[in-house]
């Protein structure tokens, strides 16, 4: 009896484990047939799988936004929100495993790479033929900013739809420091340097011990394009990347005299102590901490919401968003973050219309994807006004957004929750002085070379500015070490 019991137990255990494993390795997915045709005829999707990075957290109720979407549209929205630090690693691996979500939020560094590799659905026809209300209220310059040429002969095509405006950095100046120095906001480089010198004086005359005239979270932003998004006052007309000249040919901006001039400006200002000594190692959070502790006179940081946040968190400070100085020709607006539809999606037109267009409809969809769920993230008061409620996770802060930042909306819609005037003001200053960055050019040759090339650029910039290399030595080092990569890339682009 005992032996029989042991036999049965062992067989049962083996069977359960074996079938369990078989179930684990089985293909649980289905329904995706790869690719879709750009036709306006579509059926409503039953469900959509979406991967998103910059939405609110599940603890703050993002799943309730998805549930509300299902209630309003009848479409189940399955949201995946990976850890922010590992977001692109996760996305890359999902493509590598051949199982990406239907819709993915994708930054401008990864968007062209994936489009070039044929991983994204071409939504040009869907956008051109849509009859959605979005088309009437959108600022098309943001859509155009995402059009790119994958050099297959089809010309400029759209592989992603902007979630919000790309935005960019602007230089915030401490108004009280400026008043103390008896100065107005500078309009040119000389004035800018004079202002920084005056801020430096606060440290030496004991008014603000440890005063940092200007800080930023890096010199060369080589983790994301455009590389010169920070400290435009020093880059001016230099382009530390490949760019297309007026005659249509491509050139390497980093090896040009304008870049050497930019490095000279950086080096001189750094040696004089006008730029934060830790600019190379600064993270955005460390810059904010320095600013909030009252040590910083000017801070090159994102336009919009940060104007109010920086001011509110820095005791006694008032901020002025500085219009771009004349030598820069304006601030740079990044390529917007895109919502892409992958070729894994079985009903791309349906997803485009019922999710993307719906979320920019200027009505209930936009409200849901911008402000969240009524009663949980915002409420309409008896007098008809709409106010943001507090975050579930942090009852001291107002809900700012569910998926899309309201201040960066790409559509002209009547947001019932009014923005802080400081936020609107800084965006106005930024936008009156901005130029759009273009989608970074991609090719197999660039993909092969870019990582090493960016290391060389980063090394040259940092070492020249820190005085370890002269500008000439730095340019020589770049021209020598980067030559094989630059030559190969230019041959590919101009070939």
């Amino acid at each position, binding site marked *: 009896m005992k032996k029989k019991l042991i036999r049965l137990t062992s067989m049962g255990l083996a069977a359960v484990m074996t079938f369990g494993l078989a179930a684990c390795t089985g293909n649980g997915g289905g329904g995706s047939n790869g690719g879709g045709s750009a036709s306006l005829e579509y059926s409503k999707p039953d469900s959509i799988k979406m991967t998103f990075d910059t939405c609110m957290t599940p603890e703050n109720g993002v799943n309730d936004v998805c549930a509300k979407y299902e209630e309003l549209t009848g479409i189940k929205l399955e949201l995946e929100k990976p850890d922010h630090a590992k977001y692109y690693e996760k996305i890359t691996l999902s493509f590598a495993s051949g199982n990406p979500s239907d819709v993915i939020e994708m930054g401008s560094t990864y968007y062209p790479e994936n489009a070039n590799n*044929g*991983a994204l659905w071409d939504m040009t026809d869907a956008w051109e033929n849509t009859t959605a209300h979005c088309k009437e209220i959108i600022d098309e310059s943001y859509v155009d900013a995402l059009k790119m040429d994958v050099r297959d002969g089809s010309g400029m095509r759209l592989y992603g739809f902007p979630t919000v405006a790309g935005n960019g950095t602007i230089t915030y100046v401490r108004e009280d420091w400026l008043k103390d120095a008896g100065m107005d906001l500078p309009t040119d480089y000389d004035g800018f340097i004079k202002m920084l010198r005056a801020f430096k004086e606060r440290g030496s005359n004991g008014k603000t011990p440890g005063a940092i005239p200007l800080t930023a979270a890096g010199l060369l932003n080589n983790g994301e394009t455009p590389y010169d998004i920070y400290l435009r006052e020093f880059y001016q007309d230099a382009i530390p990347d490949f760019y297309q000249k007026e005659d249509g040919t491509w050139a390497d901006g980093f090896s040009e005299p304008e870049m050497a001039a930019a490095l000279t400006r950086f080096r001189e200002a750094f040696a004089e102590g006008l730029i934060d000594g830790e600019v190379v190692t600064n993270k955005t959070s460390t810059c904010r901490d320095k600013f909030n502790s009252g040590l910083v006179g000017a801070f090159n940081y994102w336009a919009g919401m940060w104007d109010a946040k920086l001011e509110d968190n820095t005791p006694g400070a008032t901020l002025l968003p500085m219009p771009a100085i004349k030598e820069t020709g304006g601030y740079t607006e990044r390529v917007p973050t895109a919502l892409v539809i992958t070729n894994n999606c079985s009903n791309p037109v349906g997803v485009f219309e019922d999710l993307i267009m719906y979320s920019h409809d200027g009505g209930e969809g936009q409200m849901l994807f911008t402000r969240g769920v009524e009663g949980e993230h915002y409420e309409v008061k008896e007098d008809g006004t709409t106010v943001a409620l507090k975050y579930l996770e942090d009852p001291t802060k107002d809900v700012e957004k569910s998926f899309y930042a309201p201040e960066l909306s790409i559509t002209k819609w009547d947001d019932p929750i009014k923005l802080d005037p400081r936020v609107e003001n800084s965006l106005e200053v930024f936008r009156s002085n901005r130029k759009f960055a273009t989608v970074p050019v991609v090719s197999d040759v660039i993909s*092969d070379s870019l990582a090493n090339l960016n290391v060389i650029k980063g090394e040259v910039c940092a070492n020249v500015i820190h005085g370890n290399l002269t500008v000439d030595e730095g340019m020589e080092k770049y021209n020598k070490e980067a030559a094989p990569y630059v030559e190969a890339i230019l041959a590919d682009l101009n070939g």
Partner: protein
Amino acid sequence: MAKVNVDTLVVKKPPLGVRMYKYRYFYLMALPVVILLLIFYYWPMLGIRYAFSTYKLKHITSGQGPDYSTGIGNFQKLFTDRFFLDAFRNTVILSFWNLVFATVFTVIVALLINEIQAEWGKKFVQTVLYLPHFLSWVVVASIFTLILSAGSDATGVDTSTVGFINAVFLKLGIISKPVSFLTEKSTWRPAWYIIQRWKETGWGTIIYLAALSGISPDLYEAAEIDGAGRLKQTWYITLPSLMNTILIVFILNLAKILNVFESVFVLYNELVYSVSDVIQTYTYRKGIQGNDYGYSTAIGLFKSVISLFLVTGADYVAKRIRGYGIV
């Protein structure tokens, strides 16, 4: 009564098939484990073949699969890329010295903890030493960036924002200007070794403390009768008794010698790339950012082969010197 000569008794082993049938239920019970091993350990190894191919995202999206005409092309590319060679050199240097420091410091700290007589004191010290292990590398990097900061004044005149270490060194007159430990090529590696030891030494003592508790008190008692002091007891009893554990931990750590990533990733910067960039950070840039799976697999395979040689080599040396190893 019949006598059995035990010296000449030969127990004949039944054939394998008979033995397997006899123990068939044990084999059946082991089956899921074997299947699990095959699926999760050996099946993924088939991916090694991608190291000999060109395999990028477009090969997946187009459905054409990897291009095996590359052959050993990825390895040729690897050994002609100066960034990889720099990264390989840095990995070996950083890992080797870290392994040496880890072994030495961990054993010393374990011995010191073992000498603490008061139980509560021992527990307190252990807790304090273990805590840094549970901090993420991002947090550790933030802490040490602050502590080691040379301040925000690039001219070095205004020292009011320097970090704790620079402030102390300046006060004691050890340095005349703040030193940016994490952006100077000469100081980055020493700083990294110290940060590694701060975080991991306490945790590493656990295994040695367990081994120390297994040493017979009789040995110490006998040594004491023979007139041996604490140092001689440590030298002649404790260390020889710990040798097996030290050897095992050393060889196991040797297998992980090329797996340095997070600690470097959060602490390096453009000014110190030439002394800090390691294989894993290089792979991250090339593989994840460049979607080059064939090349990344080639790097991974290269790392595994080197690790295999290191472990089997160390095991061989251990066998030659001490008569035993772990493999």
